[in-house]
């Protein structure tokens, strides 16, 4: 009986706690945690567990300025790959990144993860944004 009562109170507290978060926060957390899995499977081998990249072969994902300036084309980089010279963190990189044709929702999640990890803080990248950006890929 006592256990049941404690359990009921605990569940109530969890519900109250969860309802305190705004829908935006919940969406952010869902995207972020899902994105961390996509990152491990599709990105981490090359870009590293801390987004550190690899010397001058693979760019780091820690350059917030670069990410902000290229926000609208990041989805295209993932979907179509990247085959031109870029300057990240003051260094130039000209090796190809492979295309990875993952679903737009997965792109949104992984971009949310990357742009809010490794010292970056850019908020949620929504599915709608990714779909719009993908339509404008060159």
């Amino acid at each position, binding site marked *: 009986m006592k256990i049941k009562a404690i359990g009921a109170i605990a569940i109530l507290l969890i519900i109250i706690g969860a309802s305190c978060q705004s829908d935006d926060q919940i969406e952010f957390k869902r995207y972020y945690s899902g994105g961390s899995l996509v990152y491990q499977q599709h990105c981490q*081998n*090359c870009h*590293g567990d801390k987004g*550190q990249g*690899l*010397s*001058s*072969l*693979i760019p780091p994902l820690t350059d917030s300025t670069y990410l902000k300036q290229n926000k609208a084309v990041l989805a295209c980089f993932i979907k179509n790959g990247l085959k031109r010279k870029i300057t990240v963190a003051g260094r130039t990189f000209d*090796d190809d990144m*492979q295309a990875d044709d993952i679903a737009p929702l997965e792109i949104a999640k992984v971009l949310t993860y990357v742009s809010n990890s490794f010292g970056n803080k850019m908020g949620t990248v929504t599915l709608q944004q990714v779909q719009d950006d993908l339509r404008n890929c060159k």
Partner: protein
Amino acid sequence: MRKLWIGIVILMLFNACKSNTKTALPILGYKTPVTKTVNGKTVTDTEYATIPPFKFVNQYADTITQKNLDGKIYVADFFFTTCPSICPVMHRNMLNVYKEFKDDDNFRIISHTIDPKYDTVPVLKRYADKLGIAGNTWWLLHGEKGDTYKIAKSYLQSVSEKNPKGEYIHDGFFILIDKQKRIRGTYEGTDPAEVTKLIADIKTLKADPDQITAK
């Protein structure tokens, strides 16, 4: 008084364990008993597998044979520059080994490309430059595909041709070789903890009396 004794015993046990970790590294690979006649007596000795002679070219277009590794402890691995899966992880970890021993002329790292058609000498040089390695500590070796695949077996490694998806399948191990060209350890090159152990083992091996006297 009793407590003191218990304390002393625990301390002794602890020290015993500590000294155990200092023991020499094992010798891996196939062993064959060899019977010889020395001074009229028949003795049986164990002969350990060694890396056979080879001839490859490094990123500076210098010919590298087993003679260039005489008197050196070295680490070998197999990779290719366009590898999208495990190679970046392996070489991110190998850079730690490089940084630790790059001033030691009796130490080398050799990375064999398993895709010699694409990874020509200039491609390997470019990769080395971008990886940030210089000098002669770390050689990226180019050679006939057959030669590379054959020597991989001596290192107990499995490499094979491209699969139908166009990917090369290969092991991601780092293999530690001593001055007598015997295998002293294999380490999962994608695991930072194993690579930390490799660095510790290289230090242990360097301090081995058997290695200090070897030429």
